[in-house]
C-alpha cells in the first residue's frame, strides 16, 4: 500500500495517519504534479509499474491479486531528487517549461530561502503563459508556503488566492485547485469542514498514550468552519464601539492592516470570506494589559455579514508583536456594484516603540471585493 497526498500542509496528513493508525509509505504532491482532479483515487499497479486498474472496485482487487506476477522492468529502482544545478542551467534558457520545472524542484527539494527564487520564476512563467492553469496553481502553493514561513511578505496570502483563483478560472473542473481556495473561503462555498478533525485526533491520540504528531501551521478560521446554506445576519442590536469617530486614528504607522478576500468558487461569487491580518510595524507593538481589540464591520447597503463586531483577543504576555488575524463573511446583494467595498475600523491598544507610550487607537479600512 502506498499513498500520494494532495496537501498544502503535508504534516497535517502525518497527524491524520497517526490518528487513523495507518502506516504505509506516503509521497507528498503539494503541487499536484500528478494533475489529478479528484481524490481519493485508487490505482492497482503491477510488479512492472503498469496500471492494471483505476478507481478500483472489489472485483478489480480480486483479479489483480490473482494475476501472475508481471515480468520485465520488475526491479525496484531507487528514486533520486532532481539535479537542481542542471535544472537551473536549463531554466536559464528562459522557456516557461524549463522555468516551471526548476521552480517546482526548488519548492519540493530546496531550503526555504529558495522560495523567493521559485516565486520569481513562477511569476515569469505566468507572465509568458497567462493561460497555463497549473503554473498559476503552483505559484499559489509557493506563495502560501512563504506566507506560512518566517520569511512571509505582507501580500503573499492575497497573491496566493489570486493565483489559485486564476488557475481555477482556466480549468474550472480542477477539483484539487477548487478545494485549495475553498479551504480558506466562505462557508456558503464549503463542501465540508476541512480540518475540524484535528482537535478530536489529538484527543484520541493522547488518550492512547501517544504524543500527537506536530503541525507547523495550525488550522484556523475558515479551515475549521462548517458549511452553511446561508449567512445568519448579525443582529441589529450590536452597536458600533466608536459611532462618533472620537478615537484618535492610526494611519498605519503603528499597525499595518492587510486584507485578504477569498471568493466563493462557484458561479455565484457574491459570497466572500474576508481575512484581516494586523501586523505591528517597526514603530509599534501590542499592549495586552488593557483588553482585547475590536473590529467593526460596516457592509454596503443590502449586504449580509455574519458578524459586525469582532473581538480581537490579545496574547498572554504584557506586550507582543505577533500577527493577529480576524475573519468574517459577507454576501453581497444581487445588484451589488462591481467591485463592491466593505468598510470598517479596528480599535486596538498599542505602544510606541520609540518611547513606550501606550495608546488606544482606531484605524479605518476599506476592503475591495471583486474586480
Amino acid at each position, binding site marked *: 500500500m502506498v499513498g500520494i497526498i494532495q496537501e498544502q500542509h503535508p504534516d497535517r*496528513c502525518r497527524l491524520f495517519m497517526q490518528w487513523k493508525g495507518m502506516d504505509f*509509505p506516503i*509521497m507528498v*504532491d503539494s503541487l499536484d504534479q500528478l494533475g*489529478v482532479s479528484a481524490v481519493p483515487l485508487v490505482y492497482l499497479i503491477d510488479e512492472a509499474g503498469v496500471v492494471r486498474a483505476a478507481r478500483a472496485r472489489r472485483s478489480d482487487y480480486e483479479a489483480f491479486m490473482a494475476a501472475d506476477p508481471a515480468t520485465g522492468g520488475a526491479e525496484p529502482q531507487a*528514486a533520486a531528487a532532481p539535479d537542481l544545478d542542471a535544472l537551473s542551467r536549463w531554466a536559464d534558457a528562459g522557456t516557461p517549461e524549463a522555468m516551471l520545472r526548476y521552480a517546482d524542484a526548488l519548492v519540493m527539494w530546496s531550503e526555504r530561502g529558495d522560495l523567493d527564487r521559485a516565486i520569481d520564476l513562477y511569476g515569469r512563467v505566468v507572465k509568458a503563459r497567462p493561460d497555463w492553469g497549473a503554473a498559476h496553481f503552483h505559484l499559489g502553493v509557493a506563495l502560501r508556503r512563504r506566507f506560512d514561513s518566517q520569511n512571509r511578505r505582507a501580500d503573499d496570502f492575497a497573491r496566493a488566492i489570486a493565483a489559485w483563483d486564476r488557475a481555477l478560472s482556466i480549468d474550472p473542473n480542477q477539483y484539487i485547485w477548487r478545494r485549495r481556495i475553498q479551504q480558506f473561503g466562505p462557508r456558503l462555498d464549503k463542501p465540508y469542514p476541512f480540518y475540524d478533525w484535528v482537535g478530536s485526533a489529538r484527543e484520541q491520540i493522547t488518550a492512547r498514550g501517544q504524543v500527537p504528531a506536530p503541525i507547523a501551521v495550525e488550522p484556523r478560521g475558515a479551515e475549521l468552519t462548517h458549511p452553511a446554506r446561508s449567512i445568519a445576519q448579525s443582529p441589529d442590536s450590536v452597536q458600533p464601539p466608536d459611532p462618533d469617530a472620537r478615537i484618535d486614528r492610526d494611519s498605519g504607522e503603528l499597525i499595518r492592516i492587510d486584507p485578504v478576500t477569498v471568493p466563493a468558487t462557484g458561479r455565484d461569487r457574491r459570497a466572500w470570506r474576508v481575512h484581516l491580518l494586523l501586523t505591528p510595524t517597526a514603530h509599534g507593538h501590542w499592549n495586552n494589559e488593557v483588553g482585547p481589540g475590536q473590529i467593526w464591520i460596516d457592509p454596503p447597503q443590502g449586504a449580509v455579514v455574519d458578524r459586525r463586531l469582532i473581538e480581537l483577543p490579545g496574547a498572554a504576555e504584557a506586550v507582543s508583536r505577533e500577527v493577529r488575524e480576524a475573519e468574517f463573511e459577507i454576501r453581497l446583494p444581487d445588484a451589488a456594484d462591481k467591485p463592491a467595498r466593505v468598510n470598517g475600523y479596528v480599535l486596538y491598544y498599542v505602544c510606541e516603540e520609540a518611547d513606550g507610550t501606550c495608546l488606544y487607537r482606531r484605524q479605518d479600512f476599506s476592503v475591495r471585493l471583486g474586480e
Partner: protein
Amino acid sequence: MPRLFLTALAVLATIAVAVRAQPPAIRVGEAFPALVFPSLDDGKPMSITDFHGSKTVLVVFASW
C-alpha cells in the same frame, strides 16, 4: 525544402513543449508516471519505481 524542414522542427518543438507542459496521463495498461516526490516521513525522494517488483495499491488522497 529547408524552410519546410525548419518549420516542421518548430512545430514539433512546440508540440513537444506543449506535451511536456501537461501533467502525465495515468491510463490503465500504461506505466504509472515515475514522478519523484518527497517522502512524508523524512523528505527523501520516493517514486512508484521504488515499489517495482511488488503488486502495489496506490491511493491518491488528502486529509481534508
